[in-house]
């Protein structure tokens, strides 16, 4: 007997069930990599994101340089693979540069709301009682407005601008994420391991950080990924209404607005910014679905 215990020599007890230990997130990662749809979406999103980030190095035409004689060229025109817009600016360059702003104001509100909402929901769900009531009823006030209306109202009040659209969209998404975070937290909070952690003498903050966060983050993350598409569309909507970016800045929502008048002249070119918004939204949605099923592990 090597170690002092009555059961150390019990062969059945030492039988290790699996070849190598793998954590939850590693398992989720492996499952998502095997999912073809998710991987195609990741590839498309990476392509759009990288081209937007690396736009200055891609030898594109100047997205601000217009030409009155080359307006609204069709897709496939020499030197203008995706045609030109109503001011004769290269559509390909504008779409790629436009990705920078569109992705920024589409994704950053969700990231900010993810952080804030998770914190609020975790505290509300874990502490419970009047803290929960205070947080959740305040959240409900925001929840009562339709998100489009709320975004327009806040943006209108704060004034046009990129930073203001990000702020207004964050305010729109915080309540939704808080709600999901709160309900997930309440479910995890009553599990025995949280009781055991309390019994070990840990304070509320330590328990939330060490035991709750890892168990609630997954579902909230899935929900937030799904919100990115909504955020992209809302951001485009704000720009379309003139509450987001201002011309001549390239941004998909704004481009959709300015090209709208050309829809009878050159419908394909006019539809391009919309196609970009559609592609990014649907990719994030499908990725969110993929994540959801990858996380649904039954042992």
């Amino acid at each position: 007997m090597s170690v002092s215990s009555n059961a150390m020599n019990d062969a059945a007890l030492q039988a290790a069930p699996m070849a190598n230990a793998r954590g939850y997130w590693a398992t989720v990662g492996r499952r998502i990599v095997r999912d073809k749809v998710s991987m195609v979406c990741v590839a498309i999103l990476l392509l759009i994101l990288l081209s937007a980030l690396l736009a200055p190095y891609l030898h594109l035409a100047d997205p601000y340089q217009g030409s009155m004689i080359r307006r609204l060229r069709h897709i496939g025109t020499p030197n203008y693979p995706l045609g030109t817009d109503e001011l004769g600016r290269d559509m390909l360059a504008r779409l790629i540069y436009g990705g920078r702003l569109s992705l920024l104001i589409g994704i950053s509100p969700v990231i900010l709301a993810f952080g804030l909402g998770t914190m609020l929901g975790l505290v509300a769900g874990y502490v419970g009682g009047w803290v929960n009531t205070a947080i959740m009823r305040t959240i409900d006030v925001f929840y009562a407005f339709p998100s489009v209306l709320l975004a327009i109202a806040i943006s209108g009040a704060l004034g046009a601008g990129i930073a203001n659209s990000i702020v207004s969209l964050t305010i729109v998404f915080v309540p939704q994420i808080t709600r999901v975070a709160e309900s997930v937290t309440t479910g995890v909070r009553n599990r025995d391991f949280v009781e055991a952690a309390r019994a070990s003498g840990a304070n509320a903050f330590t328990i939330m950080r060490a035991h709750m966060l890892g168990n609630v983050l997954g579902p909230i993350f899935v929900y937030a990924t799904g919100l990115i598409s909504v955020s992209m569309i809302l951001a485009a909507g704000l720009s379309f209404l003139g509450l987001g970016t201002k011309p001549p800045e390239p941004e998909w929502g704004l481009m959709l607005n300015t090209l709208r008048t050309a829809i009878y002249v050159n419908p394909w070119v006019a539809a391009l910014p919309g196609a970009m918004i559609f592609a990014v939204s649907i990719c994030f949605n499908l990725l969110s679905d993929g994540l959801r099923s990858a996380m649904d592990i039954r042992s």
Partner: protein
Amino acid sequence: MGRGGALFLPRLLEYNIMSEATAVTGLEPIEDLGGKAQPLLRVDGLTKHFPVRGGLFGARKTVRAVDDVSFNIGKGETVGIVGESGCGKSTTARLLMHLMDRDAGEIIFDGRQVGHEMTLRELRRGMQMVFQDSYASLNPRLTIEESIAFGPKVHGMADGAARALARELLGKVGLRPEIFANRYPHEISGGQRQRVNIARALALSPRLVILDEAVSALDKSVEAQVLNLLMDLKREFGLTYLFISHDLNVVHYISDRVLVMYLGEVVELGPVEQVWARPAHPYTRALLAAMPSSDPDRRTEVPPISGDPPNPIDPPAGCRFHTRCPFAEALCSNIAPGLTELDTMGHQAACHMAIPRSGHSRAPAA
């Protein structure tokens, strides 16, 4: 698997050599005050009522989950609590752990009370708990080593030292650290998980361990192994156990003294051999009679008690057992019997049939 003294001694020596070689030091157990004679835990009048609302405009009612429960646990003792589902066993455990606020009563740990002579944090060091559901009581996102090391880290141990202690404890509960330390709860079996939970409880060097149906969910063979492990650990670390179970055989096997609970009240307590040999309360008698015996000579003749326990929202007046008791008389539904000493061994029962001159026709005369 021998648990005799002859086998025990060499094992202890072996452990000492081991611990010197690895030089893993756990947390220092909290100070023993008052010596051997002072009970490790004194519970006096412990009460917990849960409010329940009967519909929107219904009157507020209360579930009397635990009602005026008092008992002592001596140092080094194993006290068992038995009773049907819903009799308040687990609520008692959670109240003792201060995981739930009590409505009334005192919980005195080694002469000290939380909020007066000791802090809640100190109590957590002195008293730990093993839960019934081995899977739910481990965080699925943490490795076994991380789960065990969490407690010591909360109490100020460095990460490396806490992990070393966790591995040491895994060895103590019969799991090879090199195989199990980096596993996740879903990768191991129920018996192995319950061993991990025991190691996690021991990581704070507690003096009292509450085992709330800790072996009830395990297979019989695994249950026996874990019980033997618990007995070994008790000797090795000088532990005191409060063992909660509905399995009378297991309670008989492990306990020195036993508490029988019915609808939130203690109906009988005493040394386990006394209670088993001369059960004084009809409920205890019925429980023991319902126990299957493999010995034909001890086959039960008494019919088992029928029906479910009454709703604890509206417990019967008088003796709470009178609705199911074959010996109930008018007296029983009016006056609640108190716990009465039956002998000098500490055997007590709350039954009019055990109280001299109580008025019950079967009450002793003297």
